[in-house]
């Protein structure tokens, strides 16, 4: 059994099975929401005993918070975010750096988190979809653009597209529709709602610049 990121968050381990089932039936949702105790299996624990290589217990900066977390050497950032830090807004669509659903910002740059070793971003600033909303609940302008224009259908790709847009706008805050399409071209939508997505994200770019009415 190894330890993981329990310092800065509520742990569900104290939740009794009875409560958990009740939660499901009553709320229709979540089993556990923020995070869960990730049990490293025998293979991982055995490996932790090896000498040399990186320290497993590291500190990550995610959405402005310092998070202590136990990370296996081969672990990808998407795995750490989703299964250890409970940030399930980052989706895994292909796990091969092709679809973009796992896109997060690493030092403001869009990256496929399924194909980033968590250990390689120890010293960097990580931002996920959960980190866009202001503390008072105000949506990020790009999120507002999506709400206004009803971009996206099933939305499994949505957080990746939004993060790719937020990252691209840091590089080019005033893109044309064509430029923005190139900026977000590393993300796949299988509902094929590209036209409406581009409209929504372009509206998000306008809102980011403080343009009120398009």
């Amino acid at each position: 059994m190894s330890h993981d990121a329990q310092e800065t968050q509520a742990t569900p381990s104290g939740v009794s099975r009875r409560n958990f089932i009740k939660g499901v039936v009553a709320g229709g949702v979540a089993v556990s929401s923020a995070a869960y105790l990730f049990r490293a299996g025998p293979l991982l624990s055995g490996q932790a005993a090896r000498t040399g290589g990186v320290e497993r217990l590291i500190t990550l900066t995610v959405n402005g918070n310092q998070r202590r977390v136990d990370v296996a050497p081969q672990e990808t950032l998407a795995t750490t975010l989703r299964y250890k830090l409970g940030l399930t807004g980052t989706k895994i669509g292909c796990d091969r750096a092709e679809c973009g659903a796992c896109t997060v910002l690493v030092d403001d740059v869009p990256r496929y988190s399924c194909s980033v070793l968590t250990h390689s971003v120890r010293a960097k600033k990580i931002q996920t979809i959960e980190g866009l909303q202001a503390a008072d609940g105000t949506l990020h302008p790009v999120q507002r653009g999506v709400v206004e224009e009803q971009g996206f259908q099933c939305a499994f790709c949505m957080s990746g597209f939004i993060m790719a847009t937020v990252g691209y706008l840091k590089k080019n805050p005033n893109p044309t529709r064509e430029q923005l399409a190139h900026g977000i071209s590393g993300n796949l939508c299988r509902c094929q709602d590209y036209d409406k997505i581009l409209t929504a994200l372009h509206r998000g770019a306008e809102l980011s610049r403080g343009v009120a009415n398009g």
Partner: protein
Amino acid sequence: MADNKLVGRDYTTPDLIAKVTGKSKYAEDFRAEGMLFTKLLLSPIPHGRVKSVDSRAAEAMPGVKAILRASELPETADTVTDLGETIKANPKAERALTDEPVYAGEAILAVAAVDEETAAAAIEAIHVEFETLPFVVDPIKSLRPDGPNPRVEGNTWGRPPAQPGQPPGPLEIQQVKWTAEDFAEYDQGKMPMGKPQIEWSYGDVEAGFKNAALVLDETFSVANNQHHVLEPRTALAYWQNGKLYMHSGTQSAVQTVASIARWMRLDPKDVVLITEYTGGGFGSRATGSVQCMIPALLSKKTGVPVMMRITREEENYIGGIRPAVHGRVKAGFAKDGRLLAVDMYAIGENSAYEAQGDAASGGRFVSLLYQPEAMRSRAITVLTNTPPRRAQSQPGGLQAIMIFEPVIAKAARQLKIDQVAIRRLNAPEGKAKWGPADAKGQRGYATSAFIKEALDRGKDLFGWDERKARSGQRVGSKVRGVGVSVSTFVAGSTGFDGLFVIKPDGKMYIQSGVGNLGTESVFDVHRVAAEMMGMPWEKVQIAWGDTSQNLPWTCVSGGSQTTHAMTRAAHAAATDAIGKAQEIAAKKMGGSPTAYKLTGERISGPGGSMSLADVAKQAIAMGGRFDGHELPGNINKVTAISATALAGQGLMGVARDTYPRDGTSFSFVAGFAEVEVDVETGKYHLIDYAAVGDSGTIIHPKAYLGQLLGRGVLGMSHSLSLKTVYDQHYGLSLTQRFYQSRPPTILDVPRNMKGEAVNIPDPETPVGARGIGEPPVAAGACAILNAISDALGDDVYRRAPVTLDAILMALEHGKPMLDPLTANI
């Protein structure tokens, strides 16, 4: 409906904030205390039998909790339809695991362990010995006299000949081989046409050809296309008090419960499905996926929750494929372009499991869309050792229209008729006939058809005439071309239930049994009931995505049924509630019930006015049918159980859609595309696209456009790039990655597409709305095909997708060079 406050207007759906903030939970986002993880062992061979499994080493690994084999699966239960008919379960149907794999990648067994690393290591430690069997990955090869069979018993589904006075026997696998003579023209690229499984005709086809000014005979193949939903069909399952709780994405909430119950041999009341969000379906998970049994059974075995995270590779295998269809069309045209006769033959490819009807049904859509004066349609569906075929947006219609549209385009060029004009000339209108005659000699007909209006509107929207003027012009190595296509598909079913309660707090609580695929129909259809009740949207709450929340009997969200079926059900429920409110008002305040009208959340009439909140209180006081203690006799038992659970809480609207409908509901789309082809590379770019839909009244404009253009892009993918590839000798898939199967990216499609709706209500449904999920697909696919041949001439391609190698080789050699008939290359 200009005075509508809800119907026909955009709004923020109740799930959108959760989606943009990452709080929306899809199946794999749930975590259960103590849950185990599953990995699957997949068949490395395309056809064989498991001879032995040695899992001792795996079982001895610390952390390995259970192994599930095919022999442990319950036998699938028979289906009992709404009408009480029993459909026997097919013993050779697809199941969650198998000991007789019929495609490489099929799941053999599953391991549950404390984490995925351990489960993966356990899978690798299991030794499976197989007996290999003959296999085939090309349907036409299987039809050759000495062709291999994908199953021991044969290569098609059929029924034994019926004995006199007896119903036909159950489906069985049969062998069909054609003669060597049938293949005489194969090497010239002409599709062989041996004995079909299905044949129908109407009119005098031979006379039509005799009278024709132009007769064309064309072969064209449409590729297998995977659905590639972005969220793999992951499932989390656990048991509590004998009930199965399942978290999984599916297109349909209520009807998936029935599937799970059948697969698991459970009473539907013992299945709770949580499916608030689903990451795409496109037909591939209409009522869930049989593989969700795996975590359910492993959870039963281990006593703790089990998560089965499906990988992209596994999704490629079990996620579904639109069947390839090879087609040959003989079409006769009068000098003015009128279609006199069609003789169409389709060979459909299927997996070795249940047959999709794509090849068999396609001819019906052709008969509707182009109204040929006489037509014969023949088809056969052949099994191969490839993954399961599933319905995909516009199943059958897409392939048939892709086979037929280039023929129309070629005829227009040869007869020197405008491409829009020839389609308009042949277009259906009103109660247009379709398909073959029934036993009484009557042909079926559509409820309405406004495709001519769509063509007219699209011509202006797209700027057809101006673009046409520059088509075929070559600048440097670039040539432009324009294309138009029409398309159709069935667009709605009937007979489902609506259910809501207006409570004493004055709010309306609507129960939605629709799945949430992001098309927004899960909410949109209920705007009809809210509109009729005069209820402000802020006071409407919708229960959805959890089948323990008392949901009504609802259509499958597939085949563009939902908007049509469930607006009718919503209309029926609201009509029921209005009637009850009127009765309550009349009883309390006097006068005739019909003299009372709903306005401003009040019901007012000769005796005065009362709020809906007070009506709700009164309904509870009066009980009986007013608050759901007595229910209509014709509603589905699922609805009755849900309504009973909700009884006594307020004014209940509950009813079955029994509105009449004269005809079959179809929607139509006209699509327009302009391409620019680089003749030095063969690469073409889609410059612009516009589509106009005819699907009756529009309920939610932005969602409508998402479907009209989004499904259009799905169609474009079939022409642009998407395909599956199999090594023909080893029978193994070579397209396991997106860069290999090539779904289009945002840069492969135009950046500024246009879409509109003719927005003419369908006369045969009370709200006037039909579905739009299907017909945009072929419009997108074929507008491109036709634009390419407009730019380059007729003899460039004979199969889709039309990739640059096909174009470059055709330009180089002056004729199509790519083999049109071998599947999966």
